[in-house]
């Protein structure tokens, strides 16, 4: 099957039921996307599939055929969210943060100026065990303001 990852065309001829997380991490060495729970419950593996946030640990390769995957490595360094994340010094251990940023990017695409309730609703499936939530909230707001 053919798909694109971060704008590059990629071929895949393995098990169509393999979750895309392992294709990204083990075959493409795109290890910015993390394994957290394997059940789409923690958000650490969040990537975009045709522009929408999905959990890479449960989406099979078959579902990505002829589609475009974007990972944290495919988001430009000067993206407003990445800049805001650095500005607010959000990450502690950092392990959940690529998933947080991908989820937040999805939110800002749909809702460029989210309020607290919209942020909460969009981000509630992304666990951060270091408890950086206040900074995540602040960084999303900063990013939203800067992209106006």
């Amino acid at each position, binding site marked *: 099957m053919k798909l694109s990852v971060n704008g590059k065309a990629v071929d895949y001829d393995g098990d169509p039921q393999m979750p895309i997380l392992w294709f990204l991490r083990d075959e493409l060495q795109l290890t910015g996307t993390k394994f957290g729970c394997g059940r789409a419950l923690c958000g650490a593996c969040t990537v975009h599939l045709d522009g929408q946030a999905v959990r890479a640990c449960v989406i099979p390769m078959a579902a990505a055929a002829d589609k475009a995957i974007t990972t944290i490595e495919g988001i430009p360094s000067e993206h407003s969210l990445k800049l805001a994340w650095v500005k607010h010094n959000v*990450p502690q251990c950092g392990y959940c943060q690529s998933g947080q940023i991908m989820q937040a990017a999805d939110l800002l695409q749909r809702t460029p100026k989210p309020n607290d309730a919209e942020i*909460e609703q969009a*981000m509630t499936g992304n*666990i951060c065990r270091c408890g950086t*939530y*206040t900074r995540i909230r602040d960084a999303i707001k900063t990013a939203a303001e800067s992209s106006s």
Partner: protein
Amino acid sequence: MSGNKATMLHESAIGHVTGRAAYTDEVHPPLGMVELHPVLSPHAHARITRIDSAAAQNQHGVLAVLTAADVPGVNNTGPILRDEPLLPVDQVCHHSQPVAWVVAETPAVARAAAALVAVDYEPLPACLSTAEAIEQEQFFLPPAQVARGDAGTALDAAPLRLSGELAIGGQDHFYLETQASWVQVDSEGIVQVLSSTQHPTETQIIVARVLGLPSNRVVCRSLRMGGGFGGKETQANPYAAIAALAAWRCGRPVRIKLLRELDMQLTGKRHPFHARYEVGFDAEGMLQALKVQLYADGGWSCDLSPPVLMRAMVHVDNAYYCPHVHIEGRICRTNLPSNTAFRGFGGPQGMLVGEEIIDRIARHLQLPAEQIRERNFYSASAQPPRNTTPYHQPVVDNVIADLWAQLKASSEYDRRREQIAQFNDGSARRKRGIAITPVKFGISFNKTEYNQAGALLHIYADGSIQLNHGGTEMGQGLHTKILGVATRVLGVSPKRIQLMTTSTDKVPNTSATAASSGSDLNGQAVKAACLTLLERLRPIAAKRLNCAVDQVAFVDDCVQVAGDAKRQLPFAELTAAAYAARISLSATGYYRTPGLHWDPKAGRGHPFYYFAYGAAVSEVEVCGYSGVHRLLRCDLLHDVGDSLNEIIDRGQIEGGFVQGLGWLTCEELRWGAQGQLLTNAPSTYKIPTVGEVPTAFQVDLYRRQADPSTDVIFGSKGVGEPPLMLAISVREAIREAVAAFAPGASQVDLGAPATPEAIYTAIARLRARR
């Protein structure tokens, strides 16, 4: 907020947001790497009568099925007692305990082959709770004691007396990165371990022990961890050891990264506790005597339970003086995973018992709990002084009264308390509560020998610097703080310094990065190494600058005549000159915390270099029909001394509080009748998410009025653990709200964690009593 040393950004800030910051399971895999999968026990306690792995071993792609017989050294990973077989010999002691491990070319083959290993068991009676263990007297080690005065006599003499019990739930670490290790035996026969471990030296020792090697044949490195929280202090060791055994037996690089369910089922957690207490006090609520019996659920092996229990015992007092105290502790032996270190290390459980007792007194006397709290604070100025802990250490540099007063004012505590009373008068279904609670937390490892650290500093002739220290990075920002220390001492910019991966071949004999002491210990060791090299550079600089040695100053990547920026030369020029003059530009640094002593048998001594203080005000709203609560506002004031890095310290305070909030309100471990963990995924184990943290969340750093009597690195204080206990304010605020459903109740029991179910039950109990 950038540009100065106090707010230097996280050293991995860019790596974290670009995905380039690598964790253990993310280094480029070596050729021929193989995988591991365990065979799990379906029983909590059983005799193993037969293990038949022939069918599994015949599978294509299977290299070995490892059992106890394969261990060339000592088949034991126990860190204190040797009671923890890596692979069980004749019995399993908890549900899902690995009986054997399959080594195979791929994860799928390993998993399929594990299912083919036939194991016969004879089930044995299992002990599955603290309560059962107490009843059956299943304990590790003799009782531990902390005592001062004569608690028995003082209890009898006290005007008022109460007794009670409190059961406290455990907590899964749920570090986002599960246990992970990569092991390879290199061309020289050295076992190279890459492990997500908080304690590389102990991982090295355990791997060496299991393989029957001296320590010098094992190197353990720790990259950044995706969270540790104590869960990788000892419990990274078995996974490094099994990977090392597989690499040793099969001659291939081996990787292990536990799936989430396995991680939750196999690894130990924060200890559940059971407490029984008796307290004597007077009509003003002043403590006179306290007797406490603490039971910690150790699980199937001893692990770190003795020091965890001891830290609980020496934190029952929290910030309160009591003249006569007797605390006894026991470690329960149960057929559950072996409970271990978790941020606070028993301190939170001990403190929770203390706060429970304070609330009992307050309600009995119908006085506000905060009044009982502040009346009982340690105080050196009281007559007679009330500033000696139950373990006989004096409380010096005590700032709790001032900090408390500041927070009460800044949070408008008194005004809000009145407002809440009015709200509650007009609201039958929903009630609000507010509470303020203090934290006094002892900093240092109780075990004196752990309070040491080392560093290794290389300056290259081109003026670039490599820095190693013994601490590990798990998100707490230690590496960033250490960089801050080195740049401050050397007078150079951070970009000149390359911080190297923590490794046992660079700095040996290190302690776990734990006990909130990472920057205290390693910071001082780094400072010592830096000063050693500056002393060597100074004479060279003096000669070049034509000044006296004591006039030489290191500032802004230059060396100059102090106060005269015109007479200076670049740092790189100086280091090149030093090399040419044959000066050694490599040095170690070493630090041991002064003044510590501790007698664990007597429960007496001076275990802590100093105390960290804090206080928190929390306000909640509780629904009387569902028991659901909402946290409306938090105000935290915490003492970090002269912060090494304010943005990092604030992050630790925010995050520690959120983790404590989880422990006390929504994280509940449930076990099945067979001793299997039922809550083994985020679907059944509820961790705080963004919605649980209120937008009204004020965090301030306390500015102390007087210089401290201790010499901690640049006047800072450890911050990793203490803020977790600020979340006790949430539990007490919930209790206030629950109490508002039955004004005047002389006792308000509340389960820990205060889940909706526990809150609902607490309200129902009060209503039934009326």
